[in-house]
């Protein structure tokens, strides 16, 4: 029981971390929270379902295509909705909230309220350290999620593009004086943030099927992770995501499964009370 809960916590924790990285990237650079983050996660799930199950594509290109489309959609959202609100954070909150409701209702109209599930990548189960058997699909989700997070960190730490992102999130004006085209960077990082939500969506949707409103708890948890880790902190996302995944699953197993999502909220309140800047946050945003 304990071992399985820990395992489940790690799988979902990696996905939380991935989704939170997307939120954190956008907050760090643009100081904008995208309340439609969860709906983009769901959109990618629907796309990969559409390409793989309905059109019969193999799962890998279907997933790649789904993430690419959501990336383009993210660029479009930034250009059409977010860019005119620069300097007025309130309107970006309102606009993305409305967008999330619009997308939920569009999903409901197009796909119906039923859960949709893209095909599994792998079948069967494996023995873990001889302790318990665990679904191969979940293991694959864990490994691919962790690999993607590693890739994000590699890009951020080792490439020129990563250096631009880190510079801009540390000091926007200074980055501009050094020649960074911050308008272009905003658009690109917003798209990438959406793509990270999409990646989380395509990885997890074979395990947890997508419904029009299933993105809400995922996005909410990602937001809590971002606050817990510290707004704009990338390491905070990874540590916070894993922590929240573990707390939720252990809480569900040993306290109450109906209140799984409440534990995240309790953590949020605790963080705001004790250390509002989060685990790895800068004191002032």
């Amino acid at each position, binding site marked *: 029981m304990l071992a399985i809960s820990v395992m489940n916590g790690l799988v979902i924790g990696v996905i939380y971390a991935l989704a939170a990285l997307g939120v954190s990237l956008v*907050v760090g650079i643009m*100081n904008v*929270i995208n*309340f439609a983050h969860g709906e983009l996660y769901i959109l990618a799930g629907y796309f990969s379902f559409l390409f793989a199950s309905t059109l019969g594509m193999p799962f890998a290109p279907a997933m790649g295509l789904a993430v690419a489309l959501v990336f383009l959609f993210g660029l479009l959202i930034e250009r*059409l*909705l977010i860019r*005119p609100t620069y300097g007025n*954070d*309130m*309107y970006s*909150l*309102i*606009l993305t*909230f*409305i*967008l999330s*409701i*619009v997308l939920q*209702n*569009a999903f409901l*109209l197009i796909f119906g309220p039923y859960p949709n599930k893209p095909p599994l990548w792998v079948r069967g189960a494996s023995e873990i350290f001889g302790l318990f058997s665990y679904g191969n699909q979940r293991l694959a989700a864990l490994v691919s999620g962790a690999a993607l997070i590693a890739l994000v960190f590699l890009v951020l730490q080792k490439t020129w593009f990563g250096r631009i992102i880190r510079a801009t999130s540390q000091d926007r004006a200074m980055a501009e004086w050094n020649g960074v085209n911050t308008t272009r960077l905003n658009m690109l990082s917003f798209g990438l943030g959406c793509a990270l939500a999409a990646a989380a969506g395509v990885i997890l949707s074979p395990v947890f099927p997508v419904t029009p409103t299933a993105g*809400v*708890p995922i996005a*909410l948890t990602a*937001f*809590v992770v971002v*606050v817990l880790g510290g*707004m704009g902190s990338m390491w905070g996302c990874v540590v916070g995501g894993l922590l929240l995944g573990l707390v939720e699953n252990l809480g569900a197993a040993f306290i*109450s499964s*109906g*209140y799984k*999502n*409440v534990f*995240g*909220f309790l953590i*949020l*309140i605790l963080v*705001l*009370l004790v250390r*509002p800047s989060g685990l790895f946050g800068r004191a002032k*945003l």
Partner: protein
Amino acid sequence: MTTSVKWIWPAVLVGMCLLPLGVGIYPQHVLIVSLFYVMMAASWNLLAGYTGQVSFGHAAMAGIGAYTSGILAAKAGLNPWIGIAAGTLFAALLGLGLGALCLKMGGIYLSLTTLAFSQILHIIIVNEYEVTRGTMGLQVPGLIPEYSKLAYYYILLAATVLVLFILYRMIHSNLGLNFRAVQNDETAARAVGVRVLHLRVLAFTAASAMAGFAGGLYGHYLLLVTPEIPSLDLQFYVLAMTVIGGMGSFVGPILGAFAINILAEKIRDYGEYHVLVFGLVALATARFAPEGLIGVWRSLRRRPAR
């Protein structure tokens, strides 16, 4: 302009009193629901329009009012009017707590925390079905011994006038001046001695109390309190009404609430498209006419004079 303002409010009030007479039960119901939305949108506007705080927990506060009063009346047999007062107070206390907790960290934190709060409330209501009857809904007694749409209409009208009066006095006082100062330039306001944090928490507490009050009345009108009241859909409605009507103007949300609630009933005849339609309209309004219909009207009036 100033001379016409003097008689326009009494005239509107007389008109509102005469409006439900001679129409059927169903239009009366639509009007009552509209009054609930007027209270919700006008008090949400105090936050978003006047103090620059985007709360996603306003519907949740209405739910707090409705469930507090409903549970007290249905389980403890308390008089619904006392229940509504208790619900209003409870919503105010929660608003005070949430506001004090996250407002010192800035606007984004309030949005995140209120969104989380509304989700958690939803989960608690669904899980504690022994107390709340979950998604089935809690049957609650009415406010008056004999059910009559007309009587409920006048009760909600009186409540709406009360809420709007308090809001009007708040906005057109020194307090309102401080609200505007904070929204225009927080640093400058702080520099001339405005206590920004106190002001924000005060506005959030007052708006939460109003939402709790409106929710309590609404629950006792419907006679059934369901998780539909503290839902994100209702929150979206309130937000869309305010944004489309005109955020930051006193009249905008009132007109927006009436217009959208009545239009929603019309669109509903063609299927469940109304949320999608209003979402797209609200998206376009927030993007292209951030001051809403009132703002469009004002700029049209101003243009010929220039």
